[in-house]
C-alpha cells in the first residue's frame, strides 16, 4: 500500500473536491435567473438523478447484479410506497424482505 503522506494528500483532494462540487452547484443555482420552465427542468433533473441512483443501487453492486434478495426488498418497498403506506413501514419492509430472503438462502 502507498505511504501515509500520499494517501493523506489524495484524501485531501477527495474531500476538498467533493466540497467544491457541493458548493459550486449551490452557487450556480443561486446565480441562474430562472424562468418557470427552467425551474421545472432543474427539479426534473434532481428527480431523474435520484431515481437513477435508486435503481442503480437496487440492481447493482459495483458493476454486477446485486442479487434477487435486494431487488425483491426494494420492489416490495416501492409497491408499499406507491400505496402511500407510512415511510417507516416502507423502510422496515425493504430490510425485512431482503434479510428474510437471504436467510432462506436466496441471494
Amino acid at each position: 500500500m502507498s505511504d501515509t503522506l500520499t494517501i493523506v494528500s489524495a484524501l485531501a483532494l477527495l474531500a476538498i473536491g467533493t466540497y467544491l462540487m457541493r458548493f459550486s452547484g449551490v452557487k450556480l443555482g443561486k446565480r441562474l435567473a430562472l424562468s418557470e420552465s427552467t425551474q421545472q427542468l432543474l427539479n426534473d433533473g434532481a428527480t431523474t438523478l435520484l431515481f437513477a441512483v435508486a435503481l442503480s443501487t437496487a440492481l447493482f453492486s459495483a458493476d454486477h447484479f446485486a442479487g434477487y434478495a435486494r431487488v425483491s426488498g426494494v420492489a416490495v418497498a416501492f409497491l408499499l410506497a406507491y400505496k402511500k403506506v407510512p415511510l417507516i413501514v416502507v423502510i422496515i419492509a425493504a430490510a425485512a424482505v431482503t434479510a428474510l430472503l437471504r436467510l432462506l438462502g436466496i441471494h
Partner: protein
Amino acid sequence: MLREIISLVESDIKKAILLVCLAVGVVAISYGSLAMAYGFPLWLPVIASLFVLAGASEFMFIGIIAGGGNPFAAAMAGLLVNARHIPFGVAVRELVGNKLSGLIGCHIMNDESVVFGLAQKTPEARRAAYWLCGIGVAIVWPLGTLLGTVVGGLLPAPEVIGLDAVFPAILLALVIPALRNHTTRIRALAGATLALVTTPFTPAGLPVLLSLLGLLARKKK
C-alpha cells in the same frame, strides 16, 4: 435552532429520517471495520468520514488503495462518484441557507438529505427536512466509523439485516410523488434506463450523470 428544525418536520418524516440515520450508522460501523481489515490507521477512515462525508466514494477510495491502486487515482474515482453533487447543489440551492450556515449546509448534502428535502411540500418543511437528515447523517457517519474501527468485527454485516435495500427503497419512496407528473416520469424513466444500460461498462458515477440526458426526453405532441 435544532429544536426549531425538528418541530417543522412531520412526525412520519422524522421517524423515517431516524431510521435512515440508524441504517447509515450500521453501514458506517462496517466501513470502519473494513478499513481496519485493510490495514489503514484508525484515524484515516474517521477523518475521511468527517471531511468527505460521502459514503460510496469513501468505500471506493479505501478499496482502490487497499487493492494496490494509486491514491490519486482513487481520489479521482471518488470525485467522479461525487460529481452528482453539482446538480444536487443546484436543486437544493434554497435549502442550504446563506453565509456561514450555507457553508455547513453544502457539506451535509447527500442523496438522503436531498431527497428528504425536495420531497416536502412547504419551503420551511423542505429546509427543515434537508437539515435534519443532513445533520443526522453528518453526526452518525463519522461516529459509526469510529465505532467500527474499534468494535466492528462484533456486528453482523449490513447485508445480513437487509440494510443495502433500505437506501434505494427510501429514495424511490420519496421520488414517487414527483413521478406522478407525466413529463417528469418520462424524463426520469429515460434517464434511469440510460444509467442502468451503461453501468456494466462505464466507471462508477458516470452512469448516474448520464441519466441527466433523460431531460431531453419529452412528451410526444
